């Protein structure tokens, strides 16, 4: 009987993704605004001496954390997007559908925009709040939102209601931010907008110590929930009939996805598009909705796409980078549309 589990060509897809990730990662290390000869890149990677001391620093302290951040953020967003799309049975769902970004944005807005309202504390620039303060604020905002959503969803059974609450929350928070923007000066607004552009470059080794473990934990949790997500493909009633504790599973999934989305938002800003698009690309590539295939696929693919976006945003030799969100959306959207139109099944899955 032709009842293979993972088919040959699917293995090939995984192989391809792994190879692409490796290539992209190497490119992420090798390319940047400063041109470093390839042999020097290898020298730095193998622990040797580079001709210029700054090159070693650039590769070790700038490019390596940046590339690792991109991989982790892409994987986190892809996985969280997949989880949300299956959980809410909605092809447009992403990690931010529950208002996580809005919450993180509110935190950042409070720090960036209100910091100056009581006094001119922000006039002179960024101060030592800088990245660290913004990360902390975004984290607090995302965590508060997450707690609120989980609290509400423990009481509410209906998925659509939870979605609508998330949406309403986003609107309300958006209004608060607007109010703060109205009362902020241009420099503060610029900082806020710059945060909104998204970037993988803010994470240093120091911050990686928090970022990487949180993403790792989210991925482990996601992998453990693969079976449950599969059961949910048939709908909640079937899932229940197969012995799934839907409520607990929903809570765990939302916790995991929100933590992933929240930590990425905190460290990289609200990175658009990857969360929605990566699951669709993965489904189209694998031709399957099986989460035991999709989860590793979105993790790899998310990393590849994020690295690619980062590479495009930072065209080699060019000093000023494009906003990451502009790249992910402007380049990514047509790609996803093309992929979906070519695949027989069209948009959805889950």
């Amino acid at each position, binding site marked *: 009987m032709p009842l293979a589990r993972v088919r040959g060509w699917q293995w090939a897809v995984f192989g391809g993704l792994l190879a692409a990730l490796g290539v992209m990662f190497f490119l992420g290390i090798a390319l940047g605004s400063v041109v470093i000869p390839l042999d020097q890149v290898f020298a730095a990677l193998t622990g040797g001496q580079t001709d210029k001391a700054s090159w070693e620093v650039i590769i070790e302290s700038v490019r390596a954390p940046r590339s690792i951040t991109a991989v982790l953020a892409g994987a986190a967003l892809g996985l969280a997007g997949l989880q949300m799309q299956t959980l809410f049975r909605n092809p447009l769902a992403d990690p931010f559908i529950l208002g996580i970004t809005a919450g993180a944005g509110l935190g950042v807005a409070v720090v960036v925009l209100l910091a100056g309202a009581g006094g001119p504390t922000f006039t002179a620039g960024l101060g030592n709040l800088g990245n660290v303060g913004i990360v902390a604020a975004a984290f607090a905002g995302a965590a508060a939102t997450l707690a609120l959503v989980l609290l509400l969803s423990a009481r509410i059974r209906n998925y659509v209601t939870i979605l609508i609450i998330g949406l309403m929350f986003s609107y309300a928070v958006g209004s608060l931010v607007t109010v703060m923007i109205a009362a902020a000066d241009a420099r503060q607004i610029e900082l806020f907008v710059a945060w909104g552009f998204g970037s993988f470059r803010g994470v240093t080794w120091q911050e990686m110590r928090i970022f990487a473990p949180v993403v790792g934990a989210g991925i482990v949790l996601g992998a453990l929930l*693969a079976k449950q997500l599969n059961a949910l493909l048939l*709908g909640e009633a079937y899932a229940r009939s197969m012995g799934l504790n839907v409520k607990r599973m929903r809570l765990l999934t939302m916790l995991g996805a929100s933590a992933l989305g929240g930590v990425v938002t905190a460290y990289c800003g609200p990175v658009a598009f990857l969360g929605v698009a990566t699951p669709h690309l993965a489904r189209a590539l694998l031709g399957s*909705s099986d989460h035991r295939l999709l989860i590793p696929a979105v993790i790899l693919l998310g990393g590849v796409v994020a690295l690619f976006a980062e590479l495009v945003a930072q065209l080699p030799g060019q000093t000023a980078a494009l906003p990451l969100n502009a790249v992910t959306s402007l380049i990514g959207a047509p790609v996803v549309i093309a992929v979906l139109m070519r695949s027989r099944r069209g948009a959805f899955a889950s």
Partner: protein
Amino acid sequence: MTNGQPVLESLDLSVGYRSRRRVRRVLEGLNLTVSRGEFIALLGPNGVGKSTLLKTFSAIQRPLAGTVRLGGRPLSRLKPAEIAKGLSVVLTDRLDVGSLSAYKVVELGRHPHTGWGGRLTAYDHRVTRWAILSVGAVDLAHRDVNELSDGERQRVMVARALAQQPRVMLLDEPTAYLDVSSRVKLTGLLRRLARRNNLAVVFSTHDLEIALRTADTVWLLAPGGELHVGGPEDLVLGGQVARAFQGDDLAFNPLERCFRLQQESAGRALVRGNGLTAALGRAALEREGYEVARASEGPADISVTISETGGALWEAESGGLSRRGDSLAQLAAFARAGSRRDPG
């Protein structure tokens, strides 16, 4: 057959819906038993509560009162996975699973039997294959469920329920979207599965004929929520079936175990002849509202002779006019004209 040992039973069960404000009881005081290998049709008109009852039996919904026992133990004391190992369902929910092969869907039935990671053992794959084989869906296995016809998909869903290796399978209107031949095939399949695997099967339907012809036991829900349990023939004899479905327009024919449109009599008809053609000729006249007599008992408003040998198919005489024709549709038209010509 039924070995008398109840695998699923309800005690004083009330089912319905509970919202924050009020409780709506749909059915009350239900005492039902399901034995191994029993093939049960849950019959009743739409909206009487068949789905609610099945969902309560399968622990998707909580009972308002009373208990349901699976293998002698109350559902409320069992863990979800334990329930799932004893009982599986096929629901009316339309599937939107994205790209998933039929095999993967059936494989999902192994959910309660696998560990946290959902890793499938060789045994799980054997059971999956067996389930697919049992419903005759081998050539569907590698196809995407979205590409299957309604009948094929329903067979796959039955295989999925089978892969759970339950003792009871509950199916909510499994034949609802199917065409006639698929309906008959699926019901036959379910019955075979019940017999071969000593599996109790409860399926709800409003298709009276199929239920009465195939079920070991019928749970008949009358419109008021009254429940009648018995063999199909017993329920026909007792008149419960007729009462449950009979209305102004329908009359139950116990002998043929089917309903017929009730209408104002167009008169008496006498049909001579034998065989299939004569029987269908009678059916045509009945459809036109005639009471069809077999022998010449008194006067008739139309008298027909059906001959299957040579010449015309039929000859008829009504109100002094005679006609002959080659199709039964012509006969029906002549009869219709006659009833208008000669009212009463």
